[in-house]
Structure formats: C-alpha cells, structure tokens
C-alpha cells in the first residue's frame, strides 16, 4: 500500500504502518500536505497550514524511530497527520475562531491542551480548520474565509460549526481532526460529510486553550473515518485538568480495547416522538436501517424535548451574546452578518429566561437519567436532512417550512443540552448520493457504549466513511 492509499484509510492503519517501518512519518506528512494543496482550493477546509512545524515534527519522530526509541515506536497515533478547528490554540498562530475580529489578536504562545495531548500521542499537526464565526452556526458559510464545501458535493455545505473538521477527513486531507460541539457542531458536520464524530460527556475533556462559545454547553471532541480511530483519539485526549472549571475529575476510562465487546446484551432503543417528527424521510430511514442492523425494535420517548431544545437555544444565545458584548458595542460591523444580529439579540436576553432555561435543562437531564434506567443506548437522527446547497435559507421538513441554519441542529441540541455522550455514525444509501448521520447516544460517562455500537455498525457495513471522489 503506498502512502496516498494509506492516507485514505484510518489512523490506526497509518500508525501501524509507521510502527513497522513501512512508511516514514515525513512521507505521511508530505502526502497530507500534498493532498491539502491539491484539493483545498475546492473544499476550503483549511484556514492555516502548518507545513514547517509539521515537517519538523515528522523529522524528529523519524529520527527517534531510526535510533530505536521504543517510546516513540509505541505511540498510539504515531505519524498520523491531524488538524484542528481554528478555535484551538496553536503556538505561533493567532486563534481565529472563524472571525475577522480575532485576526488583530496576538499569536497563541502555547498549543491547546488537547492539541498537545495528540502530539504527545505521536500525531502530527498540519493545520487549522474553517468554522462558523465564534462557533455560532451549523453551516460553515463563513463570510470572512468563504464557505467550506462538502467534499461529496461541492455545491453543498459541510455543516458546522466544525465544518472544516469534517470536510478535511471526507477529502482525505487528514484522517483525524478535532472540533467542538455546543449544540451539534460535531454531529451536524459529521452527518453531512459522512464522517464519524464523537461528542463526549460534558465535562469529560478539558477545554484549556480553546476559545469558548457557551461555557455551560461547550464540548470538545474528535472526528475520524472509523469508530476505532475515534476511540484511539478519544483515549489519548482523556485526563482531568483543573484549568477548565467544567472538567470533572474522573479517571481515564480507555475505550479502544472495549470495542471488541460488541453489542450483545446492550438494551438499544430508538428515540421516537420529537425525533421522528423533526426528521425528514432520509433521516428516519437511516435510523431504521441502524436499528434493524442492531435488532433494536423498541421505540421510547423523552418528555418535553422541544423545551430542552429551547433551553439550549436561550442559554447559548445569552451566554454567546454576553461573551462578545465588548466587541458588539464597538465593532458590530466586523462580525459575520450570519451571526452578528443573533449575538446582538442574545446580549439583551433577560436573566430570568436564562435561569429558567437552566432549571429546565436539569429537569430534562433527570428525565433522561430515568430513561437510561431502562435502556443503555438510544438512536436518533443527527440532522433532519442531508447536506443542503450552500446559501439555502429554508428547509421543508415533514410539510413544515423552517429556517435552515438553526434547524439543522434541531435533533442534536436537546442531547448536548444535557451533556450526553454521542457518537455520530455516517449512513449511506438512504439518499441517492449523500450520507446522513445517526446519533448513538449513551448515559453520561458511557462513551464506551456509544463507541462499541458505532464500531459494530461499521463492522456490519451499515456505517462507513468513504473518501470523496474529488
């Protein structure tokens, strides 16, 4: 297998090839950089390419391997190129957060903690990725950087706000990326680009060195071409860090070795009600296909899902607006027109609305905990529809005309509102040409179960993340 073919596979294979000396780390990085160079004018996933740093890191790893460094040899992500949403700090680069405003800020002096952890696991950073401004969007139609294009159909959106993180994998530019998810920003682009994505439990992964959007709801997590890669990366990212006040002091609970346990004995059910009513035919068909493959015949409901989604909406709007109030006062015209008026409105929300939303959020979390007494894993569509065309303003979902940009998160928002771990798995074949994702949802701190189900679906051929024909 040559290096370009390797780069189209998953990270576990790439690391194994580097470990047995079949390919050098420098060759892997050069292939990734060449692929970015050949495709990114069309995809627009990258906002910065850190070629010099990547080549230096690769050379250092190759030198360690050449002298028989057993520590380097054992690194789980040895030589795997990766990239991160441009809200993660990268030493020497200004953290753009998809904005024009941040371009004036000084460069970061250190890597974000999760970037450093991936590098410590042997992965090699090759750049920063396009996103919705300040993570407030589901489309990555960024007015400053240009829209990120879906590699499977360049006329369509990649989803957002971590659009570049999903598109870069679908385009085979890198096999793993990092993104963030406040209301669906990992799961929506994973669904639309046909990629696996993991939003861990709220409070699991430390956010130190990443730019916030809504501290109450922000999660960080990985994208990959396989559930196995998600587990490998997620395991490398785990570990408490007190610098993130939301990070919970839990031991590392490794998942990669649990994938082989399979799904036998797991109680798996499909979420009905709100989740069926707000999903289009393709989304419902994808869930049905996954449920059938898992022999999951039970349908259950969570109560008052629309209110939970509304709570997430209010909290996000208010916290996001408050965060950017100083810039909104003095330079509102420098915000992306697609997010500016929402931020301005959010800065004005009454405190009583936000406090009430936080109470509803906890009420809903208690109801979900009751449901998880009866089931282990829940299935739900990730997006109501497949990727819309860039510039789409309205969606038709089950006879209702809804604003496209906020509605892409209708099905993800209620779940992140209460911090549940979710693996988004890509399903093909229900739409003629495009993928759509299914959320595999577990109880808090049970990322292992979501990953086991995702892995089983991939082994069954029900979920897959093929490279786009660019």
């Amino acid at each position, binding site marked *: 297998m040559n290096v370009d073919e390797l780069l189209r596979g998953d990270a576990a294979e790439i690391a194994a090839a580097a470990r047995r000396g079949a390919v050098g780390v420098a060759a892997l990085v050069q292939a990734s950089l060449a692929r970015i160079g050949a495709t990114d004018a069309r995809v627009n996933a990258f906002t910065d390419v850190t070629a010099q740093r990547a080549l230096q890191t690769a050379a250092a790893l190759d030198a360690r391997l050449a002298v028989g460094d057993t520590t380097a040899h054992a690194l789980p992500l040895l030589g795997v190129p990766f990239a991160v949403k441009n809200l993660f700090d990268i030493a020497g680069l200004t953290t753009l957060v998809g904005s024009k405003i941040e371009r004036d800020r000084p460069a970061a002096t250190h890597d974000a903690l999760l970037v450093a952890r991936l590098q410590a696991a042997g992965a090699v950073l090759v750049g920063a990725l396009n996103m919705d401004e300040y993570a407030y969007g589901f489309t990555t139609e960024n007015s400053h950087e240009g829209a990120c294009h879906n590699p499977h159909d360049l006329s369509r959106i990649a989803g957002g706000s971590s659009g570049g993180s999903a598109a870069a994998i679908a385009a085979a530019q890198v096999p793993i990326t990092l993104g963030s998810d406040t209301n669906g920003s990992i799961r929506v682009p994973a669904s639309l680009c046909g990629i696996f994505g993991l939003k861990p439990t709220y409070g699991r992964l430390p956010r130190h060195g990443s730019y916030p959007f809504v501290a109450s709801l922000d999660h960080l997590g990985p994208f990959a071409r396989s559930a196995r890669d998600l587990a490998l990366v997620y395991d490398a990212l785990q570990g408490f860090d007190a610098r993130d006040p939301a990070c919970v002091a839990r031991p590392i609970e490794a998942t990669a070795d649990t994938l082989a346990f399979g799904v036998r004995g797991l109680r798996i059910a499909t979420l009905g009600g709100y989740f069926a009513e707000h999903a289009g035919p393709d989304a419902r068909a994808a869930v049905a296909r996954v449920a059938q493959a898992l022999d999951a015949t039970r349908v259950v409901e969570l109560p008052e899902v629309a209110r939970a989604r509304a709570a997430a909406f209010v909290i996000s709007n208010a916290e996001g607006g408050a965060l950017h109030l100083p810039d909104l*006062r003095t330079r*509102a*015209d420098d915000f992306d027109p697609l997010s500016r008026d929402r931020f301005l*409105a959010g800065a*004005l929300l009454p405190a009583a609305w936000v406090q*009430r939303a936080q109470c*509803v959020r*906890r*009420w809903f979390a208690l109801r979900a905990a009751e449901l998880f007494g009866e089931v282990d894993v829940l299935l739900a569509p990730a997006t109501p529809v497949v990727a819309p065309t860039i510039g789409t303003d309205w969606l038709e979902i089950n006879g209702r005309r809804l604003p496209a940009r906020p509605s892409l998160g209708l099905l993800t928002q209620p779940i992140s509102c209460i911090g549940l771990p979710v693996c988004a798995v890509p399903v093909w074949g229900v739409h003629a040409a495009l993928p759509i994702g299914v959320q595999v949802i577990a109880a808090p701190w049970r990322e292992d179960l979501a990953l086991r189900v995702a892995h089983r679906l991939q082994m069954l051929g029900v979920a897959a993340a093929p490279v786009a024909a660019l």
Partner: protein
Amino acid sequence: MTPAQIEAYVDAAAAALQLPLSPAHRPGVLSYFAMAADMAALVGAQTLTMADDPAEAFVPIAPAGPART
C-alpha cells in the same frame, strides 16, 4: 411578547447596556430576539417546582499548595 413589546424592550435594554443598534442591524436583532422570546415562552411553560434546581453548580476553589493542619 408582542412585536411592540419586543421593540420597546430591545431599545431600552440596548440603551442600558450601552450597546448601539445601527438601523442596518436593528431589524435582524428584533427578529432574533423574537425567536429567543418564543423559545423562552416554551421554557417558561414547563411546570417546575422550587425543588427543580438550575443545572449550573459552582465548585469552590481551594488555595494552591499544601493544606494547613
């Protein structure tokens, strides 16, 4: 909230926060505020009791270094 109530509230709150709303931005702000008001109405209609605490919980921060005995 009625459209008139939203306009009055948005203008008053923006003034109090010293947040200028340009004529070009104001229609969009009113539209998004109305959307948030609809969401707040949904949230507000959920039956809760005094026992339904908010989701946020503050965690006290101990000083760095060894504890005094």
